[in-house]
């Protein structure tokens, strides 16, 4: 399948591996990309934990992003950088995996992921267990060909209303087809939670930029907490993103984020945004 292990796979090689306990891995961000969103650094960290946990149960199950207590965005990963990923598995079995992780660039930590929990789903509904097993062995051995990732085009986001510095609603139309569905997942495409969060963060940033005390200042996400994914978002579906400011100071703005499909809240999180620099 075109794009398999390239379009949304963020590990080139696993450099250290202690089964069911911890791992380190590398991912080179292709130099030709325009940018590499912070949420994809979190995705890369989560995927390394996924490899460790899937290998532990012989690829019979796969974890899906569901809960993340805290993700700290500490720095940027730029095109051309190499991510040095590490994960510590707190608990892992056929039901779920709990882990924490981090990503560094040139020895400087750019992301910390604290207390993430993912339930395990039946692998063969989503992917081919034997193919994953083979690719995992390749990651442990010679590694995958670097620079496979072509970049991600975020789904179009139509801002429905924006109350300066306070709140916003936007419609996010997930495409029927996109390269990342080749990896996420081959047998049952599902919109990646990290891309949903990326859109939510961008919407929160737009609200923050319109706050009276912050205008004309560039802003960056610093922390995402209380992430809870309640349901799938499938290709072709549209969700409404809602952000609402909960607290604001000169240095930080905190938002509640929700993704709603019809009358169902499919995801919630809290996002913190700060002026850059």
């Amino acid at each position, binding site marked *: 399948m075109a794009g398999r292990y390239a379009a949304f796979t963020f590990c080139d090689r696993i450099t250290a591996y202690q089964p069911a306990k911890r791992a380190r891995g590398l991912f080179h961000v292709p130099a030709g990309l325009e940018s590499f969103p912070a949420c994809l650094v979190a995705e890369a960290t989560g995927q390394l934990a996924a490899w460790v946990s899937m290998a532990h149960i012989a690829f019979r199950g796969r974890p899906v992003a569901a809960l993340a207590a805290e993700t700290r965005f500490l720095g940027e990963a730029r095109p051309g950088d190499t991510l040095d990923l590490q994960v510590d598995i707190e608990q892992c*079995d056929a*039901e*779920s995996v709990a882990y924490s992780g981090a990503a560094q660039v040139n020895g400087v930590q750019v992301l910390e992921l604290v207390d993430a929990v993912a339930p395990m789903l039946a692998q063969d509904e989503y992917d081919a267990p034997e193919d994953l097993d083979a690719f995992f062995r390749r990651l442990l051995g010679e590694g995958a060909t670097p620079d496979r990732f072509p970049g991600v085009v975020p789904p179009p986001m139509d801002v429905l209303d924006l109350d300066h510095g306070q709140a916003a609603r936007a419609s996010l139309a997930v495409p029927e087809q996109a390269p990342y569905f080749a990896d996420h997942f081959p047998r049952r495409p599902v919109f990646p939670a990290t891309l949903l969060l990326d859109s939510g963060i961008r919407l929160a940033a737009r609200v923050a930029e319109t706050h009276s005390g912050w205008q004309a200042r560039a802003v960056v996400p610093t922390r995402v907490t209380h992430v809870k*994914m*309640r349901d799938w978002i499938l290709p072709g579906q549209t969700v409404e993103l809602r952000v609402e400011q909960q607290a604001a100071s000169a240095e930080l703005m905190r938002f509640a984020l929700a993704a709603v499909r019809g009358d169902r809240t499919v995801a*919630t999180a809290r996002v913190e945004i700060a002026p850059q620099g």
Partner: protein
Amino acid sequence: MQQEFSKEEIMAVYPKVAETIADALGSEPEDVKLDVSLIEGLQAESIDFLDLVFRLERAFKIKIPRGKIVEDARGDLPESEFEEKGIVTEKGMARLREFLTEVPAERFKTPMKAAEVPKLFTAETFCKVVLRAQKAAAASA
């Protein structure tokens, strides 16, 4: 029937359990009552139970094996005797009534799908989960 835990033991852990439930579900703390069904009263979903179990583990520094509540409820009753074709058997219902003493009798409706057993769980159910885990940890220390 002798209760597994005294009211005092339940109430000793209840404030922190209630706070953890409110955090996990995004509920108002005053909406969390000892006898409230987490699913029917607080709109909890399966992902919330996973979240809650991990939060309780951290709050109380205990280990709660996944799926432990239903497994404990079943006790020594084999799964094949606890449920048939997804429906809790009479033996299974008797076992649930015996185990979930905190749940009012009228909430044990038959036929009950095995997947609906978590609808019975209340805040007190999770107090008992915590107390069992504490007891197990003390026994193995």
